[in-house]
């Protein structure tokens, strides 16, 4: 994913989780970010689907366990 595109994705994730974008790093996951719970996880799905005009599969939603996975999923869908 190009840098500008990743910045955009990062800002969406940060906005939904209500944290600073700098917190969203390679290790960012529900284990490291307190506000990332089952509720905000679905809100993240909401935001990503709306922003990218995609529909995530159940498998993809369950697979978004760490930030780089989100990057990979969105990247894969926009190819």
């Amino acid at each position: 994913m190009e840098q500008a595109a990743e910045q955009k994705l990062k800002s969406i994730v940060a906005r939904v989780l209500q944290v600073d974008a700098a917190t969203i790093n390679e290790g960012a996951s529900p284990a490291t970010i307190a506000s990332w719970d089952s509720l905000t996880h679905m809100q993240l799905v909401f935001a990503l689907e709306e922003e990218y005009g995609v529909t995530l599969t159940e498998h993809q939603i369950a697979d978004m366990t760490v930030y780089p996975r989100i990057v990979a999923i969105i990247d894969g869908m926009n190819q």
Partner: protein
Amino acid sequence: MTFPRLAEIETELALPANDLVSFPCAFLRNVTLEGVAPYMRYAARRDGLDLELRWGAYDNILQEALGGGSGVVGSGERAIVVSLWLPAFSEQLGLAFAQAKPAEVEAEVARVQEYIAATLCALRARSAAPILWLGFEPPAWPSYGILDATMSHGHRAVIRGLNAYLATELASAGNAWFIDSAQCLERVGARQFYDWRYWYMAHSPFSRAGMAELASEIGKHVRALAGRTRKCLVLDCDNTLWGGIVGEDGIDGIRIGGEHPGSSYREFQQEALNLYSRGVILALCSKNNHDDVLEVFRTRPEMILREEHISSIRVNWQDKATNIREIAAELNIGLDSMVFADDSEFEINLVRSELPEVETMLLPAAQSAENRARLASCGLFDAMALTDEDRARGQMYRAEVARQTLRAHATDMGEYLASLEMRIVVQEVGDDDLDRVAQLCLRTNQFNLTTHRHTRDELAAIAAKPANSLHLLKLSDRYGDYGTIGFCMTMVQGAEAIVDTFLMSCRALGRGVETAFLATCAAAAHRKGGTVLRGAYIPTKKNALVADFYPRHGFQPIEREGAGQWYELDWNLGRIAVPPYLTVTVQEMREATERV
């Protein structure tokens, strides 16, 4: 309403906004519904409200109502929303319906009913706030399939019965409203309304579209409860009321009725007439030759809207912001009670930037087929009640414009007022009037000394005490009936008579009617022993009009506990005189007279 994308909603909600009125709202639910929050907050902000959602603990509706859980009930909320999502509450009535025996269904229905009744009872013991309860959605794919439609106790029939029960219980609880979730489901369509991924993964059954529609429907209720109902629809003419431009296409060339696009404009007019029948004031604001537009109204038989439906007309070449300001002044209503509809993006943007209080509705001529539904679905004019006076409002405003025209020609004010032959009736409030009084308390912003928003139930409780007097003011003159235009409530304690509420509709100002009303209510309070009349002026953004109301009537400023600046008038030192050109009739209830 249509919402922008969530990112834009969040951005807008993050912007600072002045003058928002706080609207705390408790939300009790048995499923995850947090996703409605941005939509609800966004809708409320458009109505000048800062909606603060206080979520009850997940699946703790009755516990919250009883004061447990997160304690969100009875903490100063202005509304309580309840969503008891049936498939989560009752597996039998939700998912396993075909499996349940009739006796089991019956028992399960009784369990749901008990839960509803217990919750309502507990809520009312803890809070007087309005309750907004989301009804049950009928199953789009009932358990018995195609057979369900012909079964007397099929899946959908049972859910309908539960909704009827809920609606009845809410009506008897008072100040509690049934929100028809089935309508939301129908508008969106079941395939789009739910998102079963969210249901299985986060206990949240609704899609974004579903939540937006639910939020919009709740928002319509919040708007009406907060007294933000719009009162006046200002309509453009060319390409809004008819297809084409009357100045270019001619009276006979414009399209109304008949084939498309004329048919869509005619039905749009029908929708506007529905609003008129519900008490919305209609006005015209068009860049045209005045006479051309009037001729269309008078000579084109396909026109549904007639001249008699229009209360104020500004057809000229002035800019529309100026025209709308003039219409507001002529009708004596606030800009924030107006909606402006036009096909031109330019005009809409002009009004939006010049008069941000005015709500705007863009009706693109290229989508004339959508415009009737746009008007019908906006909800801006929705109110919690519809009175006979609402139905007659259009006529009353039209008569007022006729009076003003006469006044502009009269040279002597006293003579003019005498020529109106005004008769006022001061009538004691009876049970039948309480809806109307509550509506007046909620809707009157300008001529309102204290702006106490009493609800129907509060008023009923106050009226039950003999020391309190509640009076309505009615006015008529040679041009017609104004209907009920004022309300006054006094409470006598010992020698002190407190004016808790004194409000009047602005359409009756400048005639000395308020003076006669105050004098009559003061006399009624005096008969109950109140020899010192005391009242407060509590300033708001809107009621500067009455800042000098008490001093003007001979009251002296005093220090007293309670909000606002207090004034008093000692019955033994001065009386309020009724203007000589007014005839006053007092109607007391018989029981009330006996009681005193």
